[in-house]
Structure formats: C-alpha cells, structure tokens
C-alpha cells in the first residue's frame, strides 16, 4: 500500500468524513492548533533567545529549560494531536500539498537540532549555564532552532493556499 493509497483509505473512514464535514469541530481543532502555537513556539522562542544570549539573561540556561520545558512540551503534545486530527480530516489533499511536505521536512530537521543539542551540546552546560552570551555552538543551536521552527510555522500557514495543489482526481488510481 503506497502512502497515497493509505491516505485515500483514511479519507474514506467515518471519522475523517465526520471531521471534514463538521461545522464546529474542524474550526475548533484548527483554532486549538493555531493558539497552542503561543504555548509551544512561544516558549521555544523564549528558550532559544536565552541560548542566543538575547533574552532572559538574568536566569541560568538550565533553569529556563527546566522550568519552561515542561510547558513547551505540553504545547508540543497538543500541537501533534491537533495537527494529526487536521491531517486526518483532509488526508489526500494535505499529503499532496507541497507546503505540507516542506513542513514535515523542516519539522524533522528541527527535531534533529533538538536531539543534537540535548545529547551533545547541552552536556557542557555547567560551564556556560550563567553566561549572558553562551558559546558559539549553543548560540548556533538557538538560532538554527528559531529559523527551522519559523519555517515549520510558515509552511503550516501556507498549506491552506492551494497554488500548487495537484488535482487528486487527475492522478492515476
């Protein structure tokens, strides 16, 4: 089963149809997805600004991550669930949308950046925890994170515009 076939199957399920045709639930899920951006991306930005040496400078890096991290992660969980529901409501069109594919690519890259920071860069944190201007590698992690998450958000917004949409019916069955 190809991914496209899987999406076609998903689109025919009762839940997908109900969500797609709902008057209130779909807009509400979309609103949750957009507003949770403040919790997830907003706090990510605050943490990244600290890594960049551009904000929250009076607070140690470890404290910023420890205290804001759980809220940021809670936001991420809501983003993933609401985002999955939005995909579930419109699977084929979304799967074929170029901005959706770009968004997933940037999402993967942003995740890799977090993993690299978590498993390697942050190990030396005791040495720069209090620095107002952390070492280059740390600032780089913060800057790359800001750029990648901004790209994720912008591509997400663009999914709604169908400039480059392929017409699903014109594709081979």
């Amino acid at each position, binding site marked *: 089963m190809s991914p496209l076939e899987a999406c076609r199957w998903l689109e025919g399920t009762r839940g997908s149809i109900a969500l797609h045709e709902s008057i209130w639930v779909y807009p509400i899920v979309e*609103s949750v997805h957009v*507003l949770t951006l403040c919790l997830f991306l*907003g706090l990510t930005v605050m943490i990244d600004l600290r890594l960049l040496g551009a904000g929250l400078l009076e*607070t140690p890096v470890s404290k910023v991550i420890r205290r*804001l991290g759980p809220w940021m992660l809670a936001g991420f969980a809501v983003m993933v669930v609401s985002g999955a529901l939005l995909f579930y409501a419109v699977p084929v069109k979304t799967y074929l949308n170029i901005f959706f594919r770009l968004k997933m690519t940037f999402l993967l890259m942003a995740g890799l950046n977090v993993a690299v920071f978590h498993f390697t860069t942050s190990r030396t944190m005791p040495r720069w925890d209090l620095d107002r201007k952390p070492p280059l590698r740390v600032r780089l992690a913060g800057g790359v994170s800001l750029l990648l998450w901004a790209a994720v*958000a912008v591509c997400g917004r663009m999914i709604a*515009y169908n400039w480059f949409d392929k017409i699903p019916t014109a594709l081979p069955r």
Partner: protein
Amino acid sequence: MSVLALFTWFEQSWIGEGIRASRWLFPVIESVHLLALAVIGGSVLVVNLSLLGLGLGRRSAAELWHDTWPWFAGSLALMLGSGFLLFTSEAVKLYYHEAFWVKMSALLASLVFTATVQRRTALADPERVTAWWSRTVGLVSLLLWFVVGAAGRWIGFS
C-alpha cells in the same frame, strides 16, 4: 465620516488594492502576523506563568517583565503593523464581522490591563502582594489575550 466610510476608504486605498491584487502578499503578511504571534505569546506566557507561581516562579516576575519587554513591544509593533495591512485588504468585510469587533475590544482591554494592573503587580515586591492577587492578575491577562487570539482566528472562518 462614519466608521463604515472610513473602512471603505481603507479598503479602496492603494495599500488595500495592492494586497488584494497580489496572490501571495496576503499569505506573506499573514505569516509575519503568525510568527509575531509566537513571540508575543511567548513573552506574555512567561510573565503570566510566573504571576501564577508557575514557570520561572513568582519571584522572577519583575525581572521577567524587564527581560521580555523589548520582545513584547517589538512583536506587538509587528502584530499591529501586519494586522493593519491585513485589515486594509478586507476592511468592509471586517466591519460586518462580529469576531473583528470582539478582537479589537479584547485587544484594547488586554493592552490597558497589561500597562496598568499587570505591570504594577509584576513590578511590585512579591512580599507585598498576595499570591491570590498575583494569580488573579495572571489569569485575567491570559484570558484577555486568549479572547484576542481566538477571535482573531475566528475572523478567518466565513
């Protein structure tokens, strides 16, 4: 000049015309609006979480107020600028849209509340403000901003 006449004038201005004539200008301005939302949301959340005694804690509120102020002010300016451009492109439609008026009223209330009650509470000596009051201020601020955001999203539906 009535409000409707003013809105019509905005919509027919070269800015409104230009944005409507372009295929990608509206989405690009929307994206700026969205990215600024993340920054303003983050700075509002950091201060309010601390007023609630969560996040970086009540004791950090005054420090966080100063720390986040440039980011709050900068992203607010970006929000207002990009929001105004979006507004000009469809001002007459917005005149008849309830969500738009709800958003603008809540925005005004949020800004006044932030500049007065929230500011004084965040900058006050934590020993002299009850935890109950701090929490109420944090909660009211979050609720007001939530209405701004939710009504803003709702403008896009219909």
